[in-house]
């Protein structure tokens, strides 16, 4: 199989503009006759469905949630990047492009990333026009802050709820299209299969989660906006329902899965507290603007803290190791996520961890509180403020910036982060890998598109902070609505796709049989118990660091787990009713297969890059060692139950010189 990336000719900075201006168009009278299915209604799906509706296509949108507003995009905290250069600090489209390519450790496509940077500015304009209440300066203009891996301030935000506000904006636009009838919305419907007719994606099979009914839906093309697969690790910052199934069903029908092992482990999450833990909670990267990460210099102090004999406050300044500032002076606490996560692992591997399990480090705001307090006292004209006054004022400033995050932390841990440093640890957060797509965001299956986190396209081996919202919305508002026309312009003579065809019938039957066979197992173990075990295997052998031996072992363990699942899983309740355990079962079995592919992908990639750290490939200083000679390609996997097949898309860098990524 030859992978055609379909990157337009021309200079990097002109490609998208020229292409956009010369693409095939679909006339308004034809748009009315074309049907598009959009699965998933998070940022990418809602923005795509709304925009396609505005353009005049007939859209059917699907979500397994009870409302599009619940999608997990809503939980994104810190912000959204855009190359507006409002701060006059030297930002530009090129710099955002460059930072993203470098941040992704040179494993993404130049042309896609440049287009993303170009679209970034329009997103902010669009969101403002929708009424998104971004943070503003006293002059009424938009405010910015910094995120990891960059040296400019280009992140727009709405307190710590940027994802929520952007999703509500997209949801409102979608709601407007639903009201006009241009988008038909199917809540609580889950896609269980992709239907192909004559080699093209022409529809989906869904289960109505309230009644259990299996339905057929046809369209001229299908867009998957179904998010990432971080829940393969069981514990992640993803929502409980986030799953890979829609994408995985497409893979089973021939779509390729690209770079599945590229997983982002976010450095600042609340540590695991016990076996019962169901999910992990992120503390926004924006906190690293002001928080300082440290562990005690000695093991003795760390042990004393773990055993409750000492607290962070008992450790003198000179006995603390602010390891990010020490190891990476140029970027300090704002190194990219993969670098910060690995550094935390190094610290805890040295037995310097500060929580009971040993897996936790401090994120300390005392210095920021003092600095802001002094500045605030000065502005307020307070002469020689007392230490208490400085702390009081400083805490007020910190509260304005991060109030809701501090509150969230306190609710979960029962500790006051203004007085005692936060305890944090890395956790699975985002998946850079996803369905392979070309420049048009079309998968290798004609008529099947993937947008947002569900595709692999823009983040390489590591995503920079505040870039997920940017990519989801760029894809949905500004890229797909154009590029989908390249496919649909060829479809104007296709009549309405009927659901009566043999292909639909076969897909429906296969889905029903699959559900029935799951029920019929009638074993003894809960779905949840399999998911937990899968998560442990993934974290142990395909987590923050990986090695060949572990990956081989992990792959075998997953294959065994799959067999056990098929012989011993127990699903209570019935098929034709609201049954969350059945939903979970179909998702977990897909995660199990994906997990195997991730192990394989990680094993095949004999280098360390971004979030993929192979212990065999590191420098003497312990940094990741890339192998550009042999691995400057995208791994695109064709699924096979026994031996998945690897296809390679070579990455050509014409504008950026491949360098060792250094944040020192």
């Amino acid at each position, binding site marked *: 199989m030859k992978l055609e990336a379909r990157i337009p000719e021309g200079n990097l900075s002109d490609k998208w503009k020229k292409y956009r201006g010369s693409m095939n168009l679909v006339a308004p009278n034809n748009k009315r006759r074309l049907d598009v299915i959009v699965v998933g209604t998070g940022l990418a799906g809602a923005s795509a469905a*709304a*925009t396609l509706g505005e353009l005049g296509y007939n859209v059917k949108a699907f979500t397994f*949630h*009870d*409302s599009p507003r*619940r*999608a*997990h995009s*809503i*939980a994104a905290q810190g912000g959204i990047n855009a190359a*507006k250069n*409002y701060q006059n600090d030297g930002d530009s489209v090129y710099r955002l492009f460059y930072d993203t390519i470098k941040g992704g450790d040179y494993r993404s496509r130049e042309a896609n990333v440049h287009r993303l940077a170009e679209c970034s500015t*329009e997103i*902010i*304009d*669009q*969101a*403002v*026009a*929708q*009424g998104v*209440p*971004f943070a*503003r300066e006293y*002059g*009424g203009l*938009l405010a910015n802050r910094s995120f990891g891996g960059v040296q400019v301030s280009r992140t727009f935000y709405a*307190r710590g709820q940027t994802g*929520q*506000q952007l999703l509500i904006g997209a*949801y*409102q*636009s979608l*709601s407007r299209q*639903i*009201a006009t009838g241009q988008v038909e919305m199917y809540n609580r419907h889950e896609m269980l299969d992709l239907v192909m007719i004559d080699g093209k994606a022409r529809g989906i099979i869904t289960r109505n989660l309230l009644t259990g009914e299996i339905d057929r839906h046809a369209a001229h093309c299908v867009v998957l906006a179904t998010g990432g697969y971080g829940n393969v690790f069981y514990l992640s910052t993803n*929502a*409980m329902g986030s799953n890979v199934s829609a994408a995985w069903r497409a893979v089973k029908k021939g779509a390729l899965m690209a770079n599945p092992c590229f997983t982002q482990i976010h450095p600042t999450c609340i540590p695991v*507290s*016990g076996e*019962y833990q*169901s*999910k992990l*909670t*992120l503390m926004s990267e924006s906190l690293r603007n002001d928080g300082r990460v440290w562990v005690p210099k000695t093991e003795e102090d760390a042990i004393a803290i773990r055993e409750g004999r000492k607290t962070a406050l008992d450790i003198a300044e000179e006995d603390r190791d602010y390891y990010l500032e020490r190891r990476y002076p140029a970027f300090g606490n704002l190194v990219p996520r993969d670098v910060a996560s690995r550094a935390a692992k190094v610290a805890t591997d040295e037995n310097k961890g500060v929580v009971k399990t040993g897996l936790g480090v401090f994120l300390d705001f005392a210095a920021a509180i003092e600095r802001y307090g002094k500045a605030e006292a000065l502005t307020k004209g307070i002469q020689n403020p007392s230490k208490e006054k400085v702390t009081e004022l400083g805490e007020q400033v910190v509260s304005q910036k991060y109030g809701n995050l501090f509150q*969230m932390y306190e*609710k*979960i841990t*029962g500790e006051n982060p203004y007085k005692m440093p936060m305890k944090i640890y890395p956790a699975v957060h985002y998946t850079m890998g996803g369905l392979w797509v070309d420049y048009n965001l079309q998968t290798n299956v004609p008529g099947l598109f993937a947008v947002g986190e569900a595709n692999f396209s823009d983040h390489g081996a590591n995503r920079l902070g505040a870039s997920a919202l940017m990519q989801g919305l760029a894809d949905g*508002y*500004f890229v797909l609505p154009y590029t989908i026309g390249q496919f649909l312009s060829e479809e104007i003579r296709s009549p309405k796709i009927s659901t009566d065809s043999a292909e639909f019938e076969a897909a429906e039957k296969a889905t029903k049989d699959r559900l029935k066979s799951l029920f019929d197992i009638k074993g003894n173990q*809960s779905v*949840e*118990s399999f998911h937990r075990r899968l998560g442990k295997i993934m974290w142990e052998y395909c987590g923050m660091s990986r090695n060949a031996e572990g990956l081989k072992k992990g792959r075998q363990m997953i294959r065994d787990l799959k067999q056990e699942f098929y012989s011993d899983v*127990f699903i*209570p*309740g019935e098929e034709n009713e*609201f049954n*969350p*355990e059945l939903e979970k079962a179909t998702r977990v079995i897909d995660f199990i297969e994906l997990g195997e592919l991730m192990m394989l992908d990680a094993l095949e990639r004999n280098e360390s890059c971004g979030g993929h750290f192979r212990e065999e490939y590191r420098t003497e200083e312990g940094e990741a060692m890339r192998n550009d000679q042999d691995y400057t390609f995208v791994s695109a996997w064709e699924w096979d139950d026994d031996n998945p097949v690897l296809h390679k898309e070579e990455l050509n860098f014409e504008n950026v010189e491949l360098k060792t990524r250094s944040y020192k």
Partner: protein
Amino acid sequence: MELKLKIWRQKNQKDSGHFESYKVEAEEHMSFLEMLDVLNQQLIEQKKEPVAFDHDCREGICGSCSLVINGRPHGPQAGTTTCQLHMRAYKSGDTITIEPFRASSFPVIKDLVVDRSSFDNIIQSGGYISVNTGQAPDGNAIPIEKDLSSEAFDSATCIGCGACVAACPNGSAMLFTSAKINHLQKMPQGKVEHKNRVKNMIKQMDKEGFGQCSNVGACEVECPKEISTKNIANLNRFYLGTVFGGE
């Protein structure tokens, strides 16, 4: 800690429903929903049907979770969703009663899961700014006062969970509806369609069968995002304005 749970079980919308009692062993660091996970795991091991409840992000922002705990939507703590409530709020031996949100506009689907699509219908009736993709001027073209934007945020922070309706003796959706109208009215971009928005959203709210607001104020107390009833006061003023003229 050992807890006694009294949980509402209802097979489907037609079933009349009843309470069932359970015992569960919990730890103080667990979240409330993790405690229910433990119970469900026990039930599944006994080959019984687990308790159905809506939940997703488990960090207080998606608005899925929706329980009435000992008579209070989202439990005893202020500014907290059920998923953010932790078991350290309880002690061993406590009995906890768990019910679904109760309102005629939120029919029960199963056990603790209710249908809140009436909220989506209200938003579809006008809770948006009519701007197509690509029509927007530069983000900084219209300066917006910092405090005004911040006030708009305070209304826009609504997570659409429906606790306000569940808390209200009249089952009114005024806090939800007024929060959206206030959010959009405060932004210059939202002023253009304001009057129609007010009329249409109120009309839809009534059509969905939500009750009238009689200024009880329970909605504000139970709102996990602490949205103020000032939004309702403003909406009343806006509504009079659209009906009788003036602002």
